């Protein structure tokens, strides 16, 4: 339960960060800066094996279980997608598989980014979140 409050706490932190922004462009500037800052994935995982093909942008995801916690790294060819990945990883990284499998990512719609995680958006993010959970469930059953 400890970890779960952790995920909830991080999500609330992100929500209050986003409350600072007055308009959409400021929000996106922040996301884009996140995308620029983060070296998200080891280049050796940027291969077809780890790709989640979206119609608009591509996402690469690598997941591993390290000391009982999930370790995620991911990247995208689109910077906005990459910035949102940064947020998702901030919430989900180093949490236990149980917590991730049952997590509710409420922050996405709270900060108004739900369009990027709608199934019709096809930027690879929906597939990525699904895969993050599946990888967590897989490591539960290992």
């Amino acid at each position, binding site marked *: 339960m400890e970890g779960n409050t952790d995920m909830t706490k991080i999500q609330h932190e992100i929500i209050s960060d986003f409350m600072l922004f007055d308009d*959409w462009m400021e929000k996106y500037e922040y996301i884009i800066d996140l995308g620029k800052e983060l070296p998200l994935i080891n280049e050796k995982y940027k291969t077809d094996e780890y790709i989640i093909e979206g119609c*608009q942008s591509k996402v690469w995801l690598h997941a591993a279980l390290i000391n009982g916690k999930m370790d995620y790294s991911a990247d995208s060819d689109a910077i906005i997608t990459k910035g949102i990945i940064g947020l998702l990883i901030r919430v989900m990284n180093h949490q236990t598989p149980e917590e991730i499998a049952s997590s509710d990512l409420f922050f996405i719609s709270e900060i108004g980014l739900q369009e990027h995680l709608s199934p019709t958006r096809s*930027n690879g993010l929906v597939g990525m979140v699904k895969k993050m959970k599946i990888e967590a469930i897989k490591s539960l059953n290992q």
Partner: protein
Amino acid sequence: MTKLIHALKNQFNVSVIRDQFPALRQKIYGKNLVYFDNGATSQKPQVVIDAINRYYALENANIHRGVHFMSQRATSDFEAARIRIQKHLNARKSEEIIFTKGTTDSINLVAFSYGELLNKGDEIIISAMEHHGNIVPWQMLCARKGLVLKVIPINTNGEIIQEEYDKLLSNKTKLVSVIHISNTLGTVNPVKEMIKKAHAVGAKFLLDGAQSIQHMKIDVKDLDCDFYVFSGHKVFGPTGIGVLYGKEALLDAMPPYQGGGDMIEKVTFEKTTYNHLPHKFEAGTPHIAGGICLGTAFEFLSTIDLIESEAYERELAHYAEQVLETFEDLTIIGTAKNKTSVVSFNVKGLHPFDIGTLLDKQGIAVRTGHHCTQPLMDFYKIPGTVRASFAFYNTKEEVDFFAEALEKSINILR
């Protein structure tokens, strides 16, 4: 960024036209909407919206089968729409106008039904700049009947290489199916000459008019195409309705596509005979409101001088290109000599999706991605483009606003 001074022809009154489109008046994320996604679908004028309302409020009835007043009125309105479209296209007979669901549906109808007349080894020619809707139905037909699909290459400007077309044509060619105006590049293809060449080897010609019907005066008799197809929703009409024009003798020779009510003359369990044109190809209750209101869209179009609006749109697209050329590291994709209404581009190092997302947040609707032309993207070795596509209700001021928003987006992304 340099502001270009430009005098658009003033005999064409954009503000009068704009006023008729309520959707253009709204704010998106608190910003004035700039709608530059006309290639995907056009907005609707008030007369069309009113006609849709009126149909469902008062006129709704099934057609071709009622003794009562309402059914007869709906039938005659539906058939009047057909005649209006026939006149607009300058087709010989209203029987040559088949209502379909849209461009894709029309092409599938031809691929199935004309395809039934073809034999193993026959060849179909398309171009390298086709929309998936004018690729996949032919691939399916080729797989079904053992036909061969040939593709005319294009040059880097985005023009069909005519010498290559000449080489592909032979007495094995049974059909050429080509896009009139490219939805991705804006290229206006020299289809009249291409149709002549196809006929010279005895092949039929299908013209994909999804992007030409709304941008120029179409005369199917003058073009002499065998089929012309388009979607209602791209020409200021409703979604879910479109047209297949076909020459009468050819349509007569083709077997029906779908079976059901309306398309029959007499049904017994032993044998069914088919209805005459156009009903032979319109099985089941059609999109009655769609057909009638597509007629209204053409009535609206008849109030506009299409020669003037075409000139205006070409000038607007040209202006947009001039403005975009002042951006560093920006490449325009599609530089055909003859082009209109579409400007596709990429900015070095930036993903089209990112640019499109930031433009959206500034109230500007463009499309990003491959525009249903993946083989064309492969040709240019790019994942996609940002596409601004115009209609005659767009303005130079909107282009200026778009350019400012683009500059802002690029600065944020860099």
